């Protein structure tokens, strides 16, 4: 028993240190830049792949192994330089949600790049020479390599603590982080300092990737688990705090170790329970950070959700034409095109549900696929096993299911620092949904649900078995839902959401219960996403774990950003544009992550208001141009002084 206990603690420590090495980089970047770097796990993975390419199936000596890990760290630090110059430094003054989305997109790009360069196969690397034999103490066999990982984690921790709290460099960095404006006035090159600190955090990620390469097999999924555990560790420990990250990591290691002993058939679940408990009882973490939390900069709030009302009749005609065109599709399009169109309609609704949260309420979900999957699996199971349940009731069930899950997650995440916590918790939700589905025979484990039958609308006498019939039903249902949502979001409820987005504090002063409004918005969003999933299941007739992947969660973000998050219709427009793009480039398989990620990055950097935003800017420029044409001839000085003289 004692041996078992020591062994469990040993395993907990080694896992905890492994998590810490990733969490340290995340917490550093958060403390300095107030960015939750979603791509940290991906860069950790790239570090591991670089080390793998350098090692190449040899067994190295310990020194050479450490050297390789340092090289991997340097390689990733160079990527950090690029990331900072190309992406992060350009987004320092916009709302932090855009930064979150940008790093999320960067993660997708990294994953795609890894798949492209190294393939999707699993690789494994042997520990270095001295460390490959176990260490025997009495009857106890401990892995020397795990001991090495624990020692490495401790060394990194000590170095960081000394550097941050004792060395001038650390004090300098904290000054930069807490007051960049005054730091600049004192002669400090702020931009350079921030770039260096980003590079250092990336170096840590790459180094950790190299050091921990022999700990597990290497695959493009490696980064995901570490990213999540790293996030959890810093949430438990307190954001932006190295000591908290260490304790949080070790705690997670312990929990996971106990999980394997006590609940071996549900590996990896206990961590989520502990996280939920922590968020409920101690949302500020073990060591609340003194550093201020990110504030929503005003940029996001400045755009109105509503376009020019005078143009509404014209747009209604255009909308009616689009619906008629969409309804006529089954009459002339082939099966493939019809499938793409039907999926685009569902994804449009899905993106719209995401934008209720982001565009209207100013909160970003990065695991929205969880709601979609909940709806899809719920519908799939009911249609498969209880076809007698009326389909509309099933869809209603989806909505309720989605809303309840959203309410639970919201209760944990939305009480305090809404944005950051919601980002992490929604990712966690997607991951835990994926885990639960993959452990359940009932839900088809890794294979998913196949051959889902299409429903009948018994009381209307419709059989939706044919693609055309179901497509028409889909179209009608989405048009109806969108109409209801339009009505809800353009009324009192929509205005409530908008004022909480624009200025939560002032909204609270006006008597708005911000937390409740945000939770309500999240529930509506979750319900609509689940209904979208419910409509999707009989359309595709197959639902798999892919519906809960990161890629699936990025889809609504991309569609909404592409179309324009400051417009009700933006997400639908984006879904259609993306469907056309995807249909046009469907021959390039395997590029989906890079394409989705890169497109998203491009939009955030170049056109953060999407296609609808570009259209509105163009239209308003055209209007002002027409309006100022005549006065300008007589009075050339009128107009904007700034633009004219440049």
């Amino acid at each position, binding site marked *: 028993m004692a041996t078992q206990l020591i062994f469990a603690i040993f395993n907990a420590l080694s896992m905890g240190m492994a998590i810490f090495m990733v969490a340290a980089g995340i917490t550093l970047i958060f403390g300095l830049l107030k960015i939750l770097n979603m791509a940290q796990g991906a860069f950790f993975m790239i570090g591991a792949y670089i080390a793998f390419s350098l090692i190449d199936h040899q067994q190295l000596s310990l020194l050479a192994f450490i050297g390789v890990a340092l090289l991997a760290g340097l390689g990733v630090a160079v990527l950090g330089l690029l990331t900072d110059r190309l992406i992060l430094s350009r987004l320092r003054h916009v709302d932090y949600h855009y930064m979150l989305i940008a790093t999320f997109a960067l993660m997708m790009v990294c994953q795609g790049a890894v798949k492209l360069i190294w393939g999707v196969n699993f690789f494994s690397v042997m520990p270095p020479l001295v460390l490959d034999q176990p260490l025997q103490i009495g009857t106890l066999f401990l892995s020397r390599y795990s001991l090495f990982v624990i020692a490495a984690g401790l060394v990194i921790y000590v170095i960081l603590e000394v550097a941050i709290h004792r060395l001038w460099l650390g*004090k*300098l960095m*904290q*000054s930069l982080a*807490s*007051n960049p*404006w*005054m*730091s*600049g*006035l*004192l*002669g*400090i*090159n*702020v931009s350079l300092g921030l770039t260096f600190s980003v590079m250092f955090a990336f170096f840590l990620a790459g180094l950790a990737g190299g050091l921990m390469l022999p700990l597990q097999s290497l695959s493009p999924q490696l980064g995901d688990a570490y990213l999540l555990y790293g996030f959890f560790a810093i949430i438990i420990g307190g954001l932006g705090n190295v000591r908290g990250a260490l304790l949080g990591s070790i705690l997670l290691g312990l929990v996971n170790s106990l999980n394997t002993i006590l609940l071996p058939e549900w590996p990896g679940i206990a961590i989520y329970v502990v996280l939920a408990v922590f968020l409920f009882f101690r949302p500020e973490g073990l060591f609340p950070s*003194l550093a201020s939390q990110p504030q929503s900069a005003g940029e996001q709030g400045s755009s109105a959700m509503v376009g020019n009302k005078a143009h509404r009749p014209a747009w209604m005609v255009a909308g009616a034409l689009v619906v008629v065109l969409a309804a006529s599709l089954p009459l002339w399009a082939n099966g493939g095109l019809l499938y793409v169109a039907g999926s685009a309609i569902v994804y449009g609704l899905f993106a719209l549900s995401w934008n209720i949260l982001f565009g209207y309420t100013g909160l970003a979900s990065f695991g929205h696929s969880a709601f979609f999957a909940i709806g899809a699996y719920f519908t799939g199971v009911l249609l498969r096993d209880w076809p007698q349940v009326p389909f509309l009731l099933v869809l209603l069930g989806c909505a309720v299911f989605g809303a309840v899950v959203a309410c639970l997650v919201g209760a944990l995440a939305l009480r305090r620092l809404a944005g950051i916590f919601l980002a992490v918790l929604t990712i966690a939700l997607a991951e835990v949904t994926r885990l639960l589905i993959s452990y359940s025979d009932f839900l088809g484990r890794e294979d998913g649900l196949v051959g889902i039958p299409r429903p009948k609308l018994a009381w209307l006498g419709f059989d939706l078995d044919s693609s055309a019939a179901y497509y028409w039903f889909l179209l009608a249902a989405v048009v109806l839902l969108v109409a209801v949502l339009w009505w809800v979001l353009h009324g009192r409820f929509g205005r409530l959401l908008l004022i909480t987005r624009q200025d939560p504090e002032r909204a609270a002063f006006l008597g708005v219960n911000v937390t409740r409004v945000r939770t309500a918005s999240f529930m509506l969003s979750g319900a609509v996403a689940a209904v979208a999933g419910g409509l999707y299941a009989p359309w595709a007739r197959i639902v798999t774990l892919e519906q809960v992947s990161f890629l699936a969660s990025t889809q609504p973000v991309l569609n909404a950003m592409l179309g324009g998050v400051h417009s009700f219709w933006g997400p639908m427009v984006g879904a259609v544009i993306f469907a056309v793009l995807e249909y046009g480039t469907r021959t390039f398989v395997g590029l989906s992550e890079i394409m989705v990620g890169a497109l998203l990055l491009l939009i955030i950097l170049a056109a953060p208001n999407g296609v609808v935003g570009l259209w509105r800017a163009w239209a308003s420029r055209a209007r002002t141009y027409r309006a100022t044409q005549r006065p300008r001839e007589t009075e050339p000085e009128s107009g*904007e*002084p*700034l633009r004219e*003289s440049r």
Partner: protein
Amino acid sequence: MLEVSELNAYYGDAHVLHDIHLKVNAGQRVSLLGRNGAGKSTFLKSVMNAGPTVKGEVRFEGSALNALPAHQRARLGMALVPEDRQIFHHLNVLENIAMARHARAGRQALTPQQIVDRFAMLKPLTERNGGQLSGGQQQLVAIARAFAAGPRLLFLDEPTEGLAPVIVQSMADEILAICNESDAAVLLCEQNIWFARACTDYVYIIDTGRVVFDGDWRSFDASPEITRKYLSV
């Protein structure tokens, strides 16, 4: 030393400063007076390129600064003491002062310890963190910090705000003494005419973003309507 001409500053679409001309000679002490919101702080930030969008020319020691970033202006020897102090809360008094040595760029300057010795009130506080200081103490630290860079030109933004008169007197003496020793010029933004008169020998008055008067104190006194029109509350 400092020559500002045709300076216009904007916050977003708001045009805050209009065609400002201002000159500070080497070692000269100049006041910039004006009411709240007249544009005094914006002017200092514009000269440091730290905030507003700026058009126009700023020359320092003969060379045009163009788009030079704030930290490089600081290294040239321009030191701004902002009105809201901006002390680093996680650093103690001595470290706060030492932070400004990043702008020294090889110039001769007092060491942080020497500076603390000059400001008697700071002596017992050297180990205390910035976050634990009172407003007046923070103001002193902010001024002391500026000297650690060995500035050629010191911008003081309402240094007397919120300070007890006794402290103001000894602080002014010390500031002027150090400036005399190092031959540094001073541009003082104030609402307190008495303090400005005690420290400086030339006056600019700014009102709603425009310079409306400049001259020495004698010509200032010769036209009492200026005070009534632009400075009285």
